[in-house]
């Protein structure tokens, strides 16, 4: 089947599930079924329909699974936000609309991927500028400087800096990867690549992490760091970078832990949230109660205890950082596992696009985008389940937040362009139905 028809066919169940969910939540809240959820479903289908049509024209050979997975995640996200706060769901729908526009803009403007690489320094500097701008302008809210207000609209520049910096990393690493793999010196018996080619990467990386320290946004700092480390490894294939990176990370983490009290608090409540269950550990303790209440099959949509008697959410930041906990209570382990599987499918299709991509920049770009996307999903889902220390970042496509959904739709557009660009995809169904052959062909090439 033509990849676009496959995409269209898969969009239908995604829209159907979201509409069905809306109907259930709506009926629970108003006590009667109504046409309103169908209208929501129609608008939702319309938005992703437009996205689909644009992909059909601008990137017809693109991966058919990424867009439906995105649609399902967005649908579940808006559904949960609606269940928690209908006004915010309306805003989120508007942001989804803006995101689809951004998606189309990226599809159009970046369709010649090679040209994107030519502007790597400009894009990298723009990314840094966004971060510096945030530090200068943003007031501190909830202990972090993340938000910039322009004309009354909150805007989170780090979400976009993420995209720009990944493009820069991919383009730069494409240029220097040969040099990085060739070691000229040995220090203590370990082959070390020439430092001067590493310098720009370390500068950018160091700067962005420093900025994160000033912004007190640990999640995004960790995200940038992890993404760069993974890209270095992908580009060079050398475990050396991973080892150096992990040593650097350990030093950095230890330093941050020693210096900043809020980092200490984060780690301490991760180790034992019960030492202060109504103070610092409140969010994570409530999140665990929420997950436990969900059990295997959940309380049912709209039937969880997400809004307390006083009308407040059961967990502060429920519709942003803790949306996964909310979903896991109402849809249970079954629903939560399905969401994790959606991210795994995204991860798989993203890396597959990297594998079959026609040239190194596309390869590195797809890998970088997929890593940053998957790492972000893992960091927040791991955080709210107490698997790892909690860092306040959004869950891509699910969390409430305009910047997050818009930038991640941009990320999706870039991934689709990479998969469209791949020489293997030009054969249509053949490559799609025979992954291993496709990979082997590339290897031999």
């Amino acid at each position: 089947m033509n990849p676009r028809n496959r995409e269209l066919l898969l969009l239908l169940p995604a829209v159907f599930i979201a509409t069905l969910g809306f109907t259930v939540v709506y009926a629970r809240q108003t006590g009667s079924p109504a046409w309103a959820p169908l209208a929501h479903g129609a608008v939702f289908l319309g938005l992703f329909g437009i996205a689909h049509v644009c992909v059909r024209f601008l990137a017809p050979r693109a991966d058919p699974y990424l867009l439906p997975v995105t649609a399902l995640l967005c649908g579940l996200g808006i559904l949960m936000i609606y269940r928690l706060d209908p006004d915010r769901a309306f805003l989120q729908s508007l942001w989804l609309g803006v995101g689809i526009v951004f998606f189309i803009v990226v599809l159009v403007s970046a369709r010649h991927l090679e040209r994107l690489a030519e502007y790597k320094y400009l894009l990298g500097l723009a990314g840094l500028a966004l971060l510096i701008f945030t530090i200068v302008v943003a007031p501190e809210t909830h202990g972090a400087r993340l938000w910039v207000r322009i004309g009354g609209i909150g805007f989170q520049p780090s979400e976009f800096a993420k995209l720009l910096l990944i493009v820069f990393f991919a383009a730069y690493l494409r240029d220097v990867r040969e040099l990085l793999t060739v070691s000229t010196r040995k220090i203590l018996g370990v082959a070390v690549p020439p430092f001067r080619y590493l310098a720009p990467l370390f500068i950018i990386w160091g700067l962005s992490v420093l900025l994160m320290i000033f912004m007190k946004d640990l999640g995004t700092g960790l995200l940038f760091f992890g993404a760069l480390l993974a890209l270095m490894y992908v580009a060079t294939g050398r475990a050396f970078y991973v080892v150096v990176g992990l040593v650097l990370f350990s030093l950095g983490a230890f330093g941050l832990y020693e210096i900043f009290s809020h980092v200490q608090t984060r780690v301490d409540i991760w180790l034992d949230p019960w030492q202060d269950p109504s103070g610092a550990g409140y969010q994570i303790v409530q999140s665990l109660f929420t997950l436990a209440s969900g059990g295997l099959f959940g309380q049912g949509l709209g039937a969880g205890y997400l809004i307390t008697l006083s009308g407040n959410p059961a967990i502060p930041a429920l519709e942003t950082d803790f949306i996964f906990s909310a979903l896991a209570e109402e849809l249970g382990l079954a629903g939560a596992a399905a969401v994790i599987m959606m991210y795994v499918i995204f991860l798989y299709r993203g890396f597959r696009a990297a594998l079959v991509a026609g040239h190194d920049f596309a390869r590195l770009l797809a890998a970088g985008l997929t890593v940053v996307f998957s790492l972000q999903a893992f960091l927040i889902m791991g955080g709210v389940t107490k698997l790892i220390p909690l860092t306040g970042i959004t869950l891509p496509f699910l969390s409430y937040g305009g910047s997050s959904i818009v930038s991640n739709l941009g990320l999706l557009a870039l991934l689709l362009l990479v998969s469209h660009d791949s020489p293997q995809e030009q054969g249509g169904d053949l490559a799609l139905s025979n992954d291993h052959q496709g990979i082997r062909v590339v290897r031999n090439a």
Partner: protein
Amino acid sequence: MQGSIRNTFLFFLLLFLLLLVWLTYIQVWAAPGLNRNPRNTRALEQQMRIERGEIVTADGLPLVVNRREGPYYLRDYPQGSLASPWLGYAHPRYGLAGLEAAYNPELSGEADASVLDNFVGTVLGREKSGADLVLTIDSAVQRAAETTLGDRVGAVVALDPATGAVLAMASSPRYDPRLLSQAWERLSTDEGGPLLNRGTRGLYPPGSVFKILVAASALEERSITPESGFKDEGSWNAGGFVVRNYGDETFGQHDALTAFTKSINTTFAKIGVGLGATTLNAYVDAFGWREDPGLRLQTEASQFPDADEMDVAHLAQASFGQGEVLATPMHMALVAGAVATDGSIMRPFLVQRVVASSGVTLSEARPSVWKHPVSAETALTLRGMMREAVVSGTGTAAAISGVQVAGKTGTAEVADGLPHAWFVGFAPVEAPQVVVAAVVEHGGTGGKVAAPIVRTVIQAALNR
């Protein structure tokens, strides 16, 4: 680059698998423990989704009703602080207490009798709701008891001696349950504060009101009659302990009736010592002194030392309600109840009826005899003696014109401050309809302070 891409993919796949395993652990294995965690208010919130039954007085005044907020029902109290120390609360943050806790199965619709009713309700599409409680409390008597007690710390218990129905139970200080969350910090740390229902949980030395029990025992044992002669010299040495009368009065030659009406300590010490520790202990138990009368509210057992722990000095002190004797106002009312009837104590109850939301009565209280400590003859004799105490003794402040009131004063001396003021009485003597016990902590003498309280409450009960 293919190898490193694949390795990176596998690494992230592993991360997500780890997350999946961990999430399964939390949502399946760790879930039961997390659901039971005392910090977890979800179970309580689930309860708040049930329309709990209302609580109304016998005369139909609603004390506890519901207020809807979103999917939840919150408790509201139209009468404010009325009866708050024992009504308790059902609060999403502070849990259950008092009658709300004791009757939670009925109020939340979980009691066996209303399961079928709820099932039918579910089938018919009605929301699950609890059963209402119709109390035995009369709002006028309750209000009279609380008003007359006022700001003074203490308690009043009023019973129908013929049935055991509690007509009023006042405990002071009280609190306004509508302001529970604002006052919680103060209330929860104040141990002798408004959250303590003094009617069933306040333990006080009874002082001379205990003489009702001692006199009943001696009459039943036929060791005295009202006419038995005694001689008081102002003090009496009992095994090294010198018994004195209140206010160091001396009464000279007198009979047992006068010893009761004038509350002569030396004579009661002699009567008690004459009975002996074993016999007195047997009567204390016959009156149910050391038992929970089964009100279903949290109730303290009154205290009395065991026979083998009592020497003559202890026995002499215990005979006029001092020393190691402690009583709750509820128990004192029950003791007087035996005198007001044919010598039997009816089992006290607070809830007359449990009515399902459908209107069907699920259960109805049936009066039953709890104890039968003395004979009808003894009760009748003692009734006359208690009547005389109001007519010409220490209890004249309890007298009501046109109604024959009987009673006994108590002035329980304590280590620090003024004595606790007691009065236990009932009316009308010919066919008692109400028995009232009142105590005012550090109030002064029973005749001056407690007797007028009992008088007011008896009047309210007879006028209802």
